[in-house]
């Protein structure tokens, strides 16, 4: 019995039936980490001792006959931009190389309350800015399906760890596709929740109006379980809210796809999308049709401009959010300065990587007096227009189906010198963040090279239940089974 090949739902059943122990699962995961971390390099920090302690507690409670939350004992990796009390939270930046927060993110607390052993903190693009994990100050995480390729980003460490069996679940964050794009590249499931569905408290902010924390998992059922554990209003986050859903999203999984209408937005299948990707997603549409859903073409005419609006809004907010990293209070401080001004300048010059600096400059520019109306204000106006287009689609559709990324995982270094080409990797995912919608990324086949292809299911606000049940039915219909790629299982 290969424990590292199993989904959280399967492991939960085994634990419940006392066929295995939480300690055995944790052992298996740390053994896998020891075996493939030298190649994959997902982790920035391991928290093995506390993970084992949680696992032991779970076993003790199970032995005592206690009723435990469904994910108790399932090892989870946490993206290193989520604050963990007493454990470094670096955002993969030199700027926070030594930052140990005295508080935990609300999602981390919820994970702890649900007794999931936290395996460690996983890699990302610095401050979640990037699509390949290559912008990490510390290391370049590899795609477990092909070690010469990127795992995607920014939640590349989260995706790679789950795909490689180094964790069963992971928490990621998604500002423009940062959960969905790496999920797609690594062949796993990633859910970007509705803006406000999950607390952002303790998530180091990139773009506050777009950021969301979400689950990365091996199946839609697993994603539903983790989403159930982390969703809900939080009094520490004024932008979070409740929509009166059932506490356990697994309750929705059985809901029939029959009678649903799937919208295919034509703008997401044209130029710039790899043929193999388009056809895999169109085949998935056929699967939904065979399950009794109606499939119809819809239009989101503003979509091509979403990337521009995204870079205006996200960079503007980032320039403000990242201004606090100045060397005064915590984190990195330059050793070379004569006065306050020099300390600021040198600290930020030395502490931030190139991509972060590019976005800070971009954001500072678009907010500057005289440019605000031309950029930021236009970006926000675009946001309203795009929301209206999505609303119009959802008036006649239950969810929309698109590719997650225009292509499959690219090689390390392939796009590193061409930021715009790198940005285009997010072309299908950013509109979702701009509109604050939920979207589910999941595997829908392989390309000629055997690399995973991902599809994206976009729902109306707080329509996670629809997405998860549709995705679950797709998995059932296609006999999808998660497997750790051979290269990582060696």
């Amino acid at each position, binding site marked *: 019995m290969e424990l590292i090949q199993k989904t959280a739902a399967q492991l939960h059943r085994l634990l419940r039936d006392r066929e295995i122990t939480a300690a055995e699962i944790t052992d298996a995961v740390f053994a896998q980490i020891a075996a493939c971390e030298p190649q994959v390099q997902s982790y920035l920090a391991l928290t093995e001792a506390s993970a084992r302690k949680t696992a032991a507690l779970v076993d003790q409670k199970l032995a005592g006959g206690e009723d435990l939350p469904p994910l108790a004992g399932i090892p989870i990796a946490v993206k290193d*931009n*989520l*604050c963990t009390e007493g454990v470094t*939270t670096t*955002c993969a930046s030199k700027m*926070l190389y030594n*930052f140990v*927060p*005295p*508080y935990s*993110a609300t999602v981390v607390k919820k994970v702890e309350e649900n007794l999931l052993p936290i395996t460690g903190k996983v890699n990302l693009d610095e401050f979640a800015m990037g699509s390949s994990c290559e912008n990490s100050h510390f290391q370049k995480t590899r795609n477990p399906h092909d070690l010469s390729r990127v795992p995607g980003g920014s939640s590349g460490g989260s995706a790679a760890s789950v795909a490689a069996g180094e964790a069963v679940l992971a928490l990621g964050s998604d500002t423009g596709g940062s959960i969905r794009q790496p999920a797609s590249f690594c062949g796993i499931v990633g859910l970007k929740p509705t803006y406000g569905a999950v607390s*952002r*408290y*303790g*998530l*180091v*902010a990139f*773009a*506050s*109006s777009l950021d969301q924390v979400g689950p990365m998992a091996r199946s839609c059922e697993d994603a539903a379980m983790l989403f159930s554990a982390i969703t809900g209003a939080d*009094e*520490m*986050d*004024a*932008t979070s809210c409740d929509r009166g859903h059932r506490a356990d999203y697994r309750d929705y999984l059985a809901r029939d796809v029959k009678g649903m209408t799937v919208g295919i937005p034509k703008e997401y299948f044209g130029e710039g999308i790899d043929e193999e990707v388009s056809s895999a997603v169109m085949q998935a549409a056929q699967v939904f049709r065979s399950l009794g859903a109606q499939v119809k073409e819809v239009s989101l005419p503003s979509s091509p401009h979403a990337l521009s609006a995204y870079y205006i809004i996200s960079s*503007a*907010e980032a*320039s*403000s959010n990242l*201004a*606090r*990293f*100045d060397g*005064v*209070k*915590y984190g990195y401080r330059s050793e070379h300065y004569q006065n*306050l001004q020099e300390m*600021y300048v040198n600290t930020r010059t030395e502490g931030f990587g190139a991509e972060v600096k590019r976005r800070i400059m971009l954001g*500072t520019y678009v*907010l*500057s*007096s005289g440019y*605000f109306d031309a950029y*930021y204000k236009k970006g926000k106006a675009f946001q309203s227009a795009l929301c209206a287009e999505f609303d119009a689609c959802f008036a006649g559709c239950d969810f929309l189906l698109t590719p997650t990324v225009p292509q499959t995982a690219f090689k390390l270094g392939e796009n590193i010198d061409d930021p715009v080409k790198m940005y285009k990797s997010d072309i299908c995912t950013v509109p979702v963040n701009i509109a604050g919608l939920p979207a589910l990324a999941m595997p829908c086949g392989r390309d000629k090279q055997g690399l995973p292809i991902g599809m994206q299911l976009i729902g109306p606000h707080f329509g996670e239940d629809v997405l998860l049940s549709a995705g679950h039915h797709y998995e059932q219909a296609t006999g999808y089974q998660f497997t750790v790629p051979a290269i990582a299982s060696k």
Partner: protein
Amino acid sequence: MEYEVVIGLEIHAELSTKTKIYCGCKNSFGSEVNSQCCPICLGMPGTLPTLNKQVVEYAIRMGHATHCTINNVTKQDRKNYIYPDLPKAYQISQYDIPLCENGYLEFMVDGEKKRVGITRIHIEEDAGKLIHADSFDGSLVDFNRCGVPLIEIVSEPDIRSPEEAHAYLETIRSILLYLDISDCKMQEGSLRCDVNVSLMPKGSNTFGTRCEMKNVNTFSGAVRAIEYEMARQKEILDAGGVIEQETRRWNDAKGVTELLRSKEDAQDYRYFPEPDLRTIYIPEVHVEELKATIPELPNQKIERYMIAYGLPQKEATLIAEDVSRSHFFERCLEGGKVAPKSVCNWLLGDIAKVLNERGCELGDLALTPERLVELISLIDQKTISTTSAKTVLECILDDGEIAIDQIVKEKGLAQVSDTAVLEAIVAEVLAENAKAVEDYHNGKTNVLGFLVGQCMKRSKGQGNPGLMRQLLEEKI
């Protein structure tokens, strides 16, 4: 040339809410350095603000008190600038949609009613404080003040003299105190203002270029800063120069304004809507509920004191402007035992003198309205003389326990109205002052005052002066 000054004021008032504006930290002054802060007000990575509703309610009440329009739908914005006392590197404030706008304030200056427009009132957070210690090479930061709620009250440029500016500031302060939303302790920095000053030729309607003065921390400082700036600008204009738009710093110690930055160096705050906070929606019902909580304000009180109690404007103003004094005054009048004028005289006379000498407030004394009423009643009943009452007052200012009649008894202050006793004194005084008696009969009736004084002296101040005068007139 003769110039007219044009003044606009921006007042920052710290609100006396229980907790800070965006976190649960206590909003208190004078605590140990960096003891009243948490990851949120320290702006640590990943933390988020949540708005304290009480701040919005306090600000709306100030808006009502100054006849503002209350915006039911408003938002908060980020004002971005980097400084070590601002841990997030932005201040959460309000930019284009303030909570309150388009109001006005009326007050009296030199017996004339003056109206000054209120452009806007918005809510924002305070920053920390830099501490420059001689013992330390560098600066230290105290973050206790970070996140203390502020309202900024911006006036229209309607003020035309330093006196008007002073009266405006006093009025704002007394309203804040009446609403009980700020303690207005200038020495603790809970009330600060920026002053905008420009000059225009007398009779002109076109405003000149203005200079803004920061760091004005006292009302008298505001007056002196305005006077200094008027003189500085006049000198430049008279010499044929032009005023540059500048931000200047008031140096209170030297009594001068100093250049802080010119227009070219004006900071670009890159305002944008605060994405961590939701739009603020205030139902009209709630706005109206808050309106109902506005107490009678100084202006209304002054009018009422003049009409209902017959107090002169000056006295009415002196009482009404001071919230603790007016509360004391009104409590004394409850029950209608004593005349308003008597209470007024005591409050503005002997009691005010003591407060002045001690530099304290009415609340710091043990004296209660009930005890003052008791004292005044004793005078009214002619049980003690006014002179004796002053002695009693000295005793009860700081002692709230001791019975007043006990003091009167122990100190022998009871007024003597026994005709037999007084007649004896009158007889003695008349006998010893033959010259005065003679003068009186020769028509110099004003010597009677002198004779009353002599009698009072002989009675050690305890004789009933009215009775004494009556007896003198009879016996002389």
